[in-house]
């Protein structure tokens, strides 16, 4: 299968932060979710993918091309939605569209208006009078109106109510009904991804913890719950993280296949959520 995105050993130093040696691939036709706590480097990575921030070393390939050679072609085929509104606040939605549309070869007014209608966007209103959610919807309408092959969204569900979040998931799944299209989005609301993402890339502290098929992740990790007396025994199995209280312990273990048989009697195994995995990876062992 063809990779739509290849990130190889990418590093980027910023003032007080650093992306170090990121590598992952993303196959065409799927949804990849980028998760991680605030400050993990998700937005910086997306800025590098869009060539807004210049990488120090490594290589980013989109559709098999690099920004150095083909940034224009690449961006023709990408629809982007950022976490802050970057359109012209002083102008109406219609005028914003009129400024942006001519940049795209395949801009499709019909698609654009079908989305603005679907999202109940007031075209004549100035952007600055819209709520954060409405601005996000406008950005999504713009991003989809030129039939991009790859849609990159940075925290699209932040600031959106649960009703629209569900709608958005539907829209994203609708996009990949065409198996040539792909969706890459970052979020810290992991429940969104738990449902629809095919691949999950997990970042923490500017590094990639893993980038895998979602189903494989859930087979690899398990939550262990048990009485607090077993803390020592569980800790000896090198869990990813553990939370010990007076009445119980809960731990996240990985490499379930090999570790599970070694667990002591009297513990329960449960399927973790992405949030569990994120929490224990970031926090480690706490008591």
């Amino acid at each position, binding site marked *: 299968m063809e990779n739509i995105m290849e990130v190889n050993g990418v590093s980027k130093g910023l003032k007080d932060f650093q992306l170090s040696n990121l590598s992952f691939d993303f196959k065409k036709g799927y949804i990849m979710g980028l998760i991680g706590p605030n400050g993990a480097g998700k937005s910086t990575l997306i800025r590098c993918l869009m060539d807004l921030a210049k990488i120090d070393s490594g290589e980013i390939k989109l559709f098999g091309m690099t920004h150095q050679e083909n940034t224009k072609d690449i961006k023709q085929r990408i629809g982007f939605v950022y976490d802050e509104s*970057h359109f012209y606040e002083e102008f109406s939605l219609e005028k914003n569209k009129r400024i942006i549309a001519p940049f795209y070869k395949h801009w499709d007014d019909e698609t654009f208006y079908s989305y603005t209608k679907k999202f109940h966007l007031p075209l004549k209103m100035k952007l600055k009078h819209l709520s954060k959610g409405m601005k996000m919807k406008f950005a999504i309408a713009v991003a989809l109106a030129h039939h991009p092959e790859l849609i990159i969204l940075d925290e699209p569900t932040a600031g959106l109510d649960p009703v629209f979040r569900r709608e958005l998931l539907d829209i994203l799944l609708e996009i990949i009904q065409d198996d040539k299209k792909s969706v890459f989005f970052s979020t810290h609301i992991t429940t969104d991804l738990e449902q629809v993402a095919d691949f999950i890339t997990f970042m923490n502290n500017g590094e990639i913890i893993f980038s895998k098929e979602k189903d494989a992740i859930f087979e690899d990790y398990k939550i262990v719950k048990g009485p607090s007396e077993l803390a020592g025994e569980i800790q000896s199995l090198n869990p990813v993280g553990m939370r010990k209280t007076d009445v119980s312990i809960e731990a996240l273990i990985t490499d379930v296949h090999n570790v599970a048989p070694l667990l002591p009697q009297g513990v329960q195994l449960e399927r973790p959520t992405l949030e569990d995995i994120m929490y224990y990876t970031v926090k480690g062992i706490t008591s």
Partner: protein
Amino acid sequence: MKQLLLKDLYTQRLFGFLFPLIFIMPFYSISLNGANYIVVYVTYVAIWLSIYSNFGTAASNRLGLKLLSSLPVTRKKLVQGKYCAAFMWWGISLISYGTIASLILISTNNILGWGTILSLVLSLCLAFIIISVFYPLYFLFNYQVAAGITMVIPALAFFGMTFSTVMYDENSLPLQWELFLIENLLFYFLFILVSMLITFASYRLSVAIFEKKDL
């Protein structure tokens, strides 16, 4: 390129277009005294429109550049767009002068001077020299810094000129100035050459700065 110019035209604020009207008042009274101020007007308004088209807070400017850089256009092209837009603004400035001159002719029968082709070329060169100062600063820092530094130069020049007209005998200075220019075609030629070199160097510098910038 067309999209970029269109974008600049769309995003110019109303105030940007209206400001020259305020500027016309002192200019009008002086101009009627016979001096040929078309150069001053066209140059100053062209610079004003060019610079003011980038108006915005540091944050909104950053977001604007982030948006443009995410669109299918290279950063080099974005910079080119800005320098080409300066041509467009100069043209618009000239048209606005023509419109005002015709309006004044119709309403008061006073004729405003049109200057010579050479004086218009001089105006274009002057505008580009100032804009060449603005853009590298704009891409390196932000609008506030660049506009602050740049706007001072033509403002000083303009007030200096007005001031000197008041100080000296009213017609002698512009006359001397014109004589000097006509007699010095070589000076003209050099001036055009130098302004072209400055513009080109400034453009290359802006591209170099902007292509490395993290947005």
